[in-house]
C-alpha cells in the first residue's frame, strides 16, 4: 500500500482506492507524466515551497484568519469557527491553487496557462496569478456562463486574459473542461493547463489538494490558539471538491467528522455512480446509458456533474460524509450568515451554512465545535440573489 494515511499520496498510477487514475488521450499522457514529475520535484524542494508560501503571504493575504462566529453559534446551539478563505485575494480559496500551479508553470519553463471556469472564480484567479507572473492566459468558459457572469468576463479581460466562449455541448462548465483539454492537446509544449479543482487526470487531484492543504494546516494551528484542540466537525461545500479537500487534509488524521456539502442538483456522491469523465474515474451524474448529465444549481461553482476522485474514495471508506442541500435552503443561509455575523458568503459556501442550520442539534449535536470552511465571499452573487428575491416578491 502506498497509502499510509487517510489523505496521503495516491498510488503510483494516481489511484485513491478504486478512483482517480489517468484517462486521457495518448497525446496528453506525456504532459501528465511531465507534470507529475515536475510537481513531485518542486514539492520536495524547500526553495519552491518557500516561494509558494511567500507568494501566498505577500500577494494573496495569507494566512487568512479563523473567526469565531458567536451570534450564529448562539442561534444554532453550536460553537462555530470560520476559516476565512473569503478574505484571500480574489475572494476565495481558488487563489491558493493557481499560485501553486502558475509558479510550477514557470518552473517547467512554460509561458502560458489555460483554464476552464464556470462562474468565473477560477478564471479570475488564474488570470490574476498569470498577470502577476507575466504568463499568457486563455480561459474557456461556457457561452451560457459568459452571459450569466458578464462581470467576471470583464475582470479576466482587465487582467489581460483572453476569454473564449465555449459553444459545444451544454455550453457550461463541463464543456469548458472538454474544450480546455482539446486546446491543451495542441499546445502542451509551452502551455500548462491550470485545472481549477481536485479533479481531472493524475496528478491534478493530488496536486491541487496539496496546493489547498494550506487551508487545513493553518486552521489546525489557528484553532489551537483559540483553545480548540480538535473540532468535532469540519464542514465544507463541494463542487469539484478543492476547498473541502484542502480543509479536510488538515484534519483527516484527527477524530473530527468531515462533512462535504454538495448542491442537490450536482450531487455526484449522493446521486451519481462510478464512471470516467475528464480524465478521472470517479462518481459522476449520468443517465442509464452512461451519458453525462448536466448539473443544475443556483451556484455556478457547484454546477459540476462529477467530484474529485479522492472524495469518492473518502466517501467509500466512510472517512468523510457527503450530503446535499437544495437551492431553496441556500438564500436563507446566505442571509443568516450576513445578518448574524457581518459576512456575506458566496452561494457555494452558503450550502455548507444551510446544512449546518439543518443539522444543528441533529448530526451536529448541540454544543459541538464546528469548523466551517468559508470558501468565498458573496459579492459576485449579490446581483443574482437580488434579482431572484425581486422576482419572488
Amino acid at each position, binding site marked *: 500500500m502506498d497509502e499510509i494515511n487517510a489523505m496521503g499520496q495516491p498510488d503510483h498510477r494516481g489511484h485513491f482506492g478504486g478512483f482517480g487514475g489517468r484517462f486521457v488521450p495518448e497525446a496528453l499522457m506525456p504532459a501528465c507524466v511531465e507534470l507529475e514529475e515536475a510537481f513531485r520535484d518542486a514539492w520536495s524542494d524547500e526553495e519552491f515551497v518557500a516561494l509558494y508560501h511567500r507568494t501566498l503571504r505577500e500577494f494573496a493575504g495569507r494566512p487568512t484568519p479563523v473567526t469565531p462566529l458567536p451570534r450564529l453559534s448562539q442561534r444554532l446551539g453550536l460553537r462555530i469557527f470560520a476559516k476565512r478563505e473569503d478574505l484571500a485575494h480574489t475572494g476565495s480559496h481558488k487563489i491558493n491553487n493557481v499560485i501553486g500551479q502558475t509558479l510550477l508553470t514557470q518552473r517547467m519553463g512554460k509561458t502560458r496557462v489555460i483554464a476552464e471556469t464556470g462562474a468565473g472564480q477560477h478564471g479570475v484567479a488564474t488570470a490574476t496569478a498569470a498577470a502577476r507572473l507575466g504568463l499568457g492566459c486563455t480561459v474557456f468558459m461556457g457561452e451560457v456562463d459568459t452571459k450569466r457572469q458578464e462581470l467576471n468576463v470583464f475582470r479576466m479581460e482587465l487582467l489581460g486574459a483572453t476569454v473564449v466562449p465555449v459553444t459545444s455541448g451544454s455550453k457550461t462548465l463541463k464543456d469548458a473542461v472538454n474544450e480546455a483539454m482539446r486546446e491543451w*492537446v495542441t499546445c502542451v509544449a509551452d502551455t500548462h493547463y491550470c485545472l481549477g479543482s481536485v479533479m481531472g487526470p493524475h496528478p491534478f487531484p493530488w496536486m491541487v489538494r496539496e496546493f489547498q492543504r494550506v487551508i487545513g494546516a493553518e486552521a489546525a494551528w489557528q484553532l489551537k490558539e483559540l483553545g480548540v484542540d480538535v473540532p468535532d466537525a469540519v464542514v465544507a461545500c463541494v463542487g469539484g471538491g478543492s476547498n473541502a479537500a484542502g480543509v479536510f487534509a488538515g484534519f483527516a488524521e484527527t477524530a473530527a467528522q468531515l462533512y462535504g456539502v454538495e448542491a442537490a442538483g450536482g450531487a455526484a456522491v449522493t446521486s451519481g455512480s462510478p464512471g470516467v469523465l475528464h480524465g478521472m474515474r470517479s462518481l459522476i451524474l449520468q443517465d442509464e446509458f452512461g451519458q453525462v448529465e448536466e448539473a443544475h444549481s443556483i451556484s455556478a461553482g457547484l454546477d459540476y456533474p462529477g467530484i474529485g476522485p479522492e472524495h469518492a474514495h473518502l466517501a467509500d471508506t466512510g472517512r468523510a460524509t457527503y450530503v446535499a442541500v437544495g437551492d431553496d435552503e441556500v438564500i436563507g443561509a446566505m442571509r443568516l450568515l450576513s445578518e448574524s455575523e457581518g459576512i456575506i458568503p458566496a452561494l457555494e459556501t452558503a450550502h455548507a451554512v444551510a446544512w449546518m442550520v439543518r443539522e444543528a442539534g441533529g448530526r451536529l449535536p448541540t454544543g459541538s465545535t464546528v469548523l466551517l470552511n468559508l470558501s468565498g465571499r458573496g459579492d459576485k452573487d449579490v446581483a443574482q440573489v437580488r434579482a431572484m428575491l425581486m422576482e419572488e416578491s
Partner: protein
Amino acid sequence: MKTLETTLRSLRESGRKALVPYVVAGATPDWTHHVEAAVLGGADAVEIGIPFSDPMMDGVVIQEAGLRALERGTTFESICQELESLETEIPLVAMTYYNIFLHYGLRRTAGRLHDVGVSGAIVPDLSLEESDEWRAASGDSDIATIFLVAPSTSRTRMRTVAGLSQGFLYASARMAVTGAASDQGEGERVVSELRRVSDIPTYVGIGVSTPAQAHTTAVFSDGVIVGSALVKIILQGASPTDVESFVRSFRTALD
C-alpha cells in the same frame, strides 16, 4: 492472433493500402446505409463512432454529429441492434469513450460487440495504464483493442503501446483533436519511429481530409483513417450515393 489483425495483415501482404472511413452511428436515420455505401466505395474497414456526451478528443464536426445522434435517442444498445441487420464482409471497429463501455459492463460490451460483427475498438481516453480490465474482457470476445500513438509519444513509450495494440496501430498525425487540416502534420516521423519498434499495420489519422493527403500519407504508412471530412458531408445531407463516391475518390488516390 486476433481476427482483425489477421485480416489487416493479409490486406497489407496483398499490397493494398487500407482505407478506413469513420461514420457516427445514429447521426442520421440512414447511417447504416452510409456504412454500406462506404464499403461499396472501397473501404477496407469502417470505424463506427458511438456517441458520448463529452467527446474530449473530437473537434467540432464529430462533436456535432455525436450531439445529433444523442438527440435522436441513440444508445449503445440501439446501435448494436442496427448493426445486427447490417450485412458486410469487411471489419467494423467501434470508436467511443470509456464511460460508455464501463457503464454497459466491460464483458457485456465485448460480447455484444462481437455478436453484432464488430472486431475491434478504439477508446481514445483509455490510456494504456488503465486498460488491463478492458483488455482482459475484450480479449475473451476476440475484440482487438487499438491504441493511439501521438507525436508527443516518446520512443520508449511507442514500443510499449505498439506491443499492446491489436489489429492495427492508430498513428495520430498531429497534436490536435479530430478535424480537418491543410498540412501533412507529423505523421511521417511518427510512422517511421514506429516502424523501428513494431511491424503491426499502422494507419494514420487526425486531419486526413482530402484524397491528395491520403495519397501522400499512404506512401509512408499502411493506410489512412478518414473521419471528420466524411462526417462533414454526412451532416450536410450526403446521400449513400454521395458517400460512396466520396469514399471512392480516396480509394482511387490510394490505389
